[in-house]
């Protein structure tokens, strides 16, 4: 804000051009300086509004009875919510989404932190592997889904062959599908947690660890009492990204199972896709999405507040 006010210039005494600058700089009027950030942000604001517009329209659809078969909708208040919330299939979707998001995030976090710990040892093997760690993460989730779908195939897939499961074991049957999609998700996204936590580990101060090593602390004690508290903000950032993404998971589940068999892996976004794009019932799909958006919004607010607390605590612990 106070970038070129004359006040700051005299504090830089060894600048020869200072006297001249004091004369020149105020020629930019204050109102123009104040306006500058707004002018620079206007195009971005247009984009934001352009994206918010369909969002608001979508929220409005949730209160209409709008579908391809009913192109002249009218306002039905909370009828969609009543019908969706009274529907067994919706609650099944909520259950699947919750199980998937919690299970995948938990496993990815534990494995990611473990992987970061192993890579942080800087062994030769670790150095080589660190280069290829992000490969699954950079492949599109939908392509990862295709890859795993080929491997899951009971007859022609490699997995049953290598693991000796015969040619009848079906990874994507209704009892195994949710496990299998979590497996694919953690294959893709565990490296995400790992590289974030690894970056955190490498930025930690060395002194506390040296001191406790001199004191003869065990490795586990150091990890639990020193490293984990300082790493907590990094882990939380990774958890926030993973959990929010897992709540709205779509790509790889859609290509693997399309929400099936039956409704075994029908997450909320897949449910909304079925209702609004396949069955062309826009209002019902929008109702799903509005409910998911509320869940996402509340979760995000909660997790961000936890992160804020953790960052303040970690900052306090380090100084």
């Amino acid at each position: 804000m106070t970038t070129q006010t004359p006040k700051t210039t005299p504090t830089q005494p060894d600048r020869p051009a200072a006297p001249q600058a004091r004369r020149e700089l105020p020629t930019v009027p204050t109102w123009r300086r104040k306006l500058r950030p707004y002018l620079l942000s206007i195009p971005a604001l247009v984009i934001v509004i352009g994206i918010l517009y369909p969002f608001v329209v979508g929220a409005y659809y949730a209160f209409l009875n709008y579908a391809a078969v009913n192109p002249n909708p009218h306002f039905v208040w909370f009828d969609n919510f009543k019908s969706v919330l009274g529907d067994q299939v919706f609650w099944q979707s909520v259950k699947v989404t919750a199980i998937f998001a919690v299970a995948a995030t938990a496993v990815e976090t534990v494995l990611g932190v473990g992987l970061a710990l192993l890579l942080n040892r800087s062994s030769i093997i670790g150095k080589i592997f660190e280069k290829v760690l992000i490969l699954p993460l950079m492949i599109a989730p939908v392509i990862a889904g295709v890859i795993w779908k080929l491997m899951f195939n009971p007859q022609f897939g490699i997995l049953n062959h290598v693991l000796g499961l015969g040619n009848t074991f079906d990874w994507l049957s209704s009892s195994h599908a949710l496990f299998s999609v979590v497996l694919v998700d953690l294959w893709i996204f565990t490296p995400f947690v790992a590289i974030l936590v690894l970056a955190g580990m490498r930025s930690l101060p060395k002194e506390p660890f040296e001191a406790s090593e001199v004191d003869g602390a065990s490795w586990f004690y150091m990890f639990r009492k020193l490293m984990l508290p300082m790493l907590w903000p990094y882990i939380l950032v990774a958890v926030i990204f993973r959990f929010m993404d897992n709540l709205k998971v779509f790509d790889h589940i859609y290509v693997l199972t399309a929400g099936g068999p039956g409704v075994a892996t029908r997450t909320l976004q897949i449910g909304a896709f079925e209702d609004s794009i396949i069955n062309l019932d826009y209002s019902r799909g929008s109702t799903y999405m509005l409910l998911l958006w509320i869940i996402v919004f509340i979760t995000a607010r909660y997790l961000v507040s936890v992160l804020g607390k953790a960052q303040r605590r970690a900052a306090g612990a380090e100084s």
Partner: protein
Amino acid sequence: MAITRFKPTRSELLPGQRRLSPGSVTADLGLIIWFVFSLFPIAWMVILALKNAQEQTTTYFQFSPTWSNFATVVSDKGTQMTSVDFKAALLTSLLNCGGAVIVSLVIGIPAAYAAGRWKYKGSSDLMFQMLSFRFAPELMVIVPLFVIYNQIGLFDTKVGMIWVLQLVTMPLVVWILRSYFEDLPEDLEQAALLDGYTRTRAFVMVALPIVRPGIAAAALLAFIFAWNNYVFPLILADSNAGTVTVAITKFLGGGGQAYYNLTAAAAIIAALPPLILALTIQRYLVRGLSFGAVKA
């Protein structure tokens, strides 16, 4: 301080870093297990892509390798066999994602600079609105857009795709670059101003060149995310603006003859651009993927 450190090599190590102990062997074993799990699917895809039509359904590791699948996938013959025009999808992906990233850079850099340089009223509101796009469920926007696009004729057009891809690329560009502009010392631009530069010239000649690596990283990461996106083209595009991610799933569907080897070859072709780009910006990945939250 330096005198008291008798064993510098030893004390540089963090917990669990001691070499050549039973623990370190277990750790290396753990790493190897993970990387077998992590790399096996990719290796299997390469093998499958090199198999010929007779071998594609076998699960053996011995086979007679052929490169022809890669050529077939992008040829007219492949299009006739699988009814997927993969070549066109590749070109569309390139145009959609390139266009989306350019638009995001042109619009996002000034906004990121404003947010990183000045604290002004509404600045954080705008930034958090952007961030919320990253976390919002996509279909909340896409379902109404599906209806709107069909009404105004943007359905299955590249312009429509570039517009909707801003949902992916814009938050990424703005948030990453804001973190770079925040780190940029203000003195540099001030020195330029004192030398008689205008504000615009100071920005273009001083600030921009310094954050150029950040801009490149943000642009490439945005390109990767746009390339890997699936929901938008699935719903808002068809044959004209359909991208590789949609094309690849079509290899699996559509009953009748299955071409596992061609699917694998297509998967590799489609996965290569993001992989190559990611390796070139590996240093900036952590910062980019965390939207500037973790500065590695």
